[in-house]
């Protein structure tokens, strides 16, 4: 809050909601990490298989060193349903959605575009 002084707990909840509406989520960001303390951006280490989806960057901040391709995220939505993105329903309506895409890292562009 810039101009209001949140006095009681209810007011502080408003302030927290306001903060959440204006700022990025910093979930699982290790603020005590050396990189943070040195003023660098800290990216949590790990495999996207474990932490997927969420950190579509490698330790250097790029995507080249990921142990899974960034495109894997699309499939994670599709199969694991762990990301609140809308993907085609592969059970009833679009069972062949990814039939042209046998290796995601190479031919993810072959995934069909589905118009609802």
């Amino acid at each position, binding site marked *: *809050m*810039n*101009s*209001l*002084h*949140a*006095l*009681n*707990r*209810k*007011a502080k*909840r*408003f302030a927290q*909601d*306001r903060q959440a*509406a204006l700022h990025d989520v910093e979930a699982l960001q290790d603020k005590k990490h050396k990189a943070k303390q040195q003023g660098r951006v800290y990216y949590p280490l790990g495999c996207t298989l474990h932490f997927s989806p969420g950190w579509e960057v490698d330790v250097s901040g790029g995507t080249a060193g990921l142990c899974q391709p960034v495109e894997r995220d699309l499939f994670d939505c599709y199969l694991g349903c762990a990301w609140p993105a809308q993907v085609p329903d592969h059970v009833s309506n679009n069972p062949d959605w990814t039939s042209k895409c046998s290796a995601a890292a190479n031919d993810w562009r072959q995934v069909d575009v589905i118009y609802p």
Partner: protein
Amino acid sequence: MTAVAEAIAAPYRIGEHHAFYAAGREFLYLVPSGAIFGLEGLSKTIVDLLRHEALPREAIRSRLAGLHPAAEVEAVIEELEFCDVIINGESREKFPALPEPEFPIQRIVLNTTNQCNLACGYCYEYSDDKIAESAGKPKYMSTEVAQAAIDTLFKEAAGRPLLHVTFFGGETLLNFPLMKWAVEYANKKARESGKQVDYSLTTNATLLTEEIVDFLAANRIGVTVSIDGDKELHDRMRVFHSGKGSYDVIAPRIKMLLARHKTNSIGARVTLSSGVRDVRRIYDHLTKELGFQGVGFSPATANPDRLYHIGGQKMDDVFDAFSELAWEYRDFALKGGQHYFTNVNDSIKELHQGISKAYTCGAGLGLLGVSTSGGIAACHRFADSPVAQMGNVLDGGVDHGARRQFLENHHIGARPDCHSCWVRPVCAGGCYHESFIHHGQTAASTLNQCDRVRNWIDLCLRIYGEIAVHNPQFLQRFDEN
């Protein structure tokens, strides 16, 4: 004009609120959220602008052009609107929602007996304003009823992990064997179901013995003692059936209770009446002479034509005395000390949490009263009465239809008298039993008390503001739910 453009052009006004000053600053208590914000810098400038007239966003910007950067003005308008300090349409919500059907019960009050060994003149259970019909009803609660009541509590508690059982009367300890049995039974049920139960007792202290006190301490049973002050004041109303005062009987027992029972809180509850209203004298006696660490005051529930009713100027004097104690509480709090005036403590807690009540209390909501015959009422005050009944623990348990009807009738949304009142987040209309005595119906707002309630909460807001600014650590005790 599109809907979006209309919304942008709609004039802003200040949201429903009560303004108060504390520690040299202005604060707004927002209604119905119960949030308290201090106005500083530009937020105060904008609110002050809107005190005189409603203005659209563009007009606010142009009035402040050259005085503050446009981006800053825009950000503060957004912030004020987000918190409902200013609104340009309907506020987000006027009232809290109705609770879910079959809202889980958390507490039952067992009226272990409808008999009493005292004959206090103002007693709502026996005196002129009584509504209970105990004739033909069992004088003492049986283990069968207590068992069914506790079973009802566990059944209706759904997923609640912590349950409460309050023992009440009549004089509760006239049926101490039942109380003892009920605690053991509820403890057994708690162990079996993985829940926790805690207990409280209200008593006139005449029957306290070391054996009973040791039982209370062993089971961490909180105790409220009904006492009206020193011997002279107490004995005016709180007498045995012979007319003899009860102070000399209870004083040594209370000292023994306070010395032996350290596992839960022990508080004094004072009923003020026309001849017993020297608040300072009573408070000093109970805390300094007897050693209570919690004293709550309440005027006797009475029809205005009763001799013990406190009316007019006398009630104003009582309020002044409450105010004096409340400011003393502030002085203690600023130094980190503990004051024992529970009326102000309870109000400060509610204001700190920003409570916004749909109901004035838990009666019929999370709390039910059970009479000696097993009748379920909204609370103990309606036990064995024809009013606010909702089933019987021996015959089908809670009547959810009656309970739902009660909750719909008493919801703040169904009390039009309260809809323009700023104190409704903490008051929500007033005690159903008081309403029934004064107005003949439980769902009427206690309009005779409105000004005093508003004055009291305004006072508590100012005290809260000072504590929150100068010693916020003191308020951490109210952080847990």
